[in-house]
């Protein structure tokens, strides 16, 4: 798939709020998958490269990734007001909804059909996250570290977190610093 050369941008804070509310309400079992699709492919506010860069910052910093990503995208278009509006869009309506659900859930917690449906939705949500990662992977082609290095770093990261279950707080600093130092060297020719 070819990335379109021209990007759009939200016309107003209202459009930003509506877009993020709509996003959040479509995000079952996590919002990242739908965020990538809507922001990069439907509204074309960001390229895949932009999305990966923003997500990288959002993942390294503390706090919910999608919350960090929302406010950074809002800030990019409308400054601090955009950050607040994007955050409000991402959180306000879902917050009301989740509290209503919490009130209802008590009565259906033991229901096998409800439990089964939640289980099936969980399986799909997990797959959506993996599918999003596969869609974003082509941005690595233009990475200055080169494809073999990118593939190795990604494989090590996956193995440490998913297979060995090492703590993120250990893996992220060590692997992250190593990768950034390597990239620094590549960007400057010979260090």
């Amino acid at each position, binding site marked *: 798939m070819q990335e379109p050369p021209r990007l759009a941008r939200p016309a107003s804070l209202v459009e930003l709020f509506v877009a993020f509310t709509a996003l959040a309400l479509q995000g079952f079992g996590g919002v990242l998958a739908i965020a990538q699709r809507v922001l990069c492919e439907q509204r074309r506010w960001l390229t895949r490269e932009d999305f*990966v860069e923003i997500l990288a910052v959002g993942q390294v910093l503390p706090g919910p990734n999608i919350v960090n990503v929302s406010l950074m995208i809002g800030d990019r278009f409308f400054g601090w007001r955009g950050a607040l509006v994007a955050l409000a869009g991402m959180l306000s309506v879902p917050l009301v909804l989740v509290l209503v659900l919490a009130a209802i859930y008590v009565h259906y917690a033991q229901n096998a059909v409800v439990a089964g449906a939640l289980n099936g939705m969980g399986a799909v949500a997990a797959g959506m996250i993996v599918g999003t990662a596969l869609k974003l992977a082509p941005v690595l082609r233009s990475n200055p570290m080169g494809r073999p290095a990118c593939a190795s770093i990604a494989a090590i990261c996956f193995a440490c977190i998913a297979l060995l279950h090492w703590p993120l707080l250990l893996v992220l600093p060590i692997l992250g610093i190593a990768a950034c130092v390597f990239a620094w060297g590549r960007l400057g020719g010979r260090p």
Partner: protein
Amino acid sequence: MSSLSLADWLHLFGHFLLLSFAAIGGAIVIAPEMHRLMVIQTGLLTDAQFSASIAIAQAAPGPNVLFVAVMGYQAAGIAGAAATTIGIMLPSSFLAFAASRWSQARQDWRAVRAFKAGMAPITIALLVATGWILATGTPGWAHLVLTTAAALAVWRTRVHLLVLIAIGAVVGALGWV
């Protein structure tokens, strides 16, 4: 429900403010510490209420971090939800905002470009790892087949994600996974 003193409120709010800084990788990372605080230490929630909070937030649309709001709500009503949600989000959001500004202003710096390049494969691998951990938490091949099918559909097709979620709900409700 709520019979908390002002000191209790401040203690709870302050604890969530601190926890916010530890939530690298998402709010779910600090769930064990919240369990210690809300269930074991203060007894504001039962074990069942704690687990239900996470399940509800994952089933509902929107960011999963809202499980924190559900916990606060179950412990002390709307005010409780406000205290835990604002507490967990305020410090990390300020940090993210500052970092965003800082890096935007220095886009051309070699260090900033090195960070973006170096972190890109890690960012993508973390997504795959998250999906893997979620998918393998529940045993059974049918579960894995559903996850794989969803991943392929997102990757290769333009099927609406809500359609996929609905299929998952139906398949699950029928007891097939």
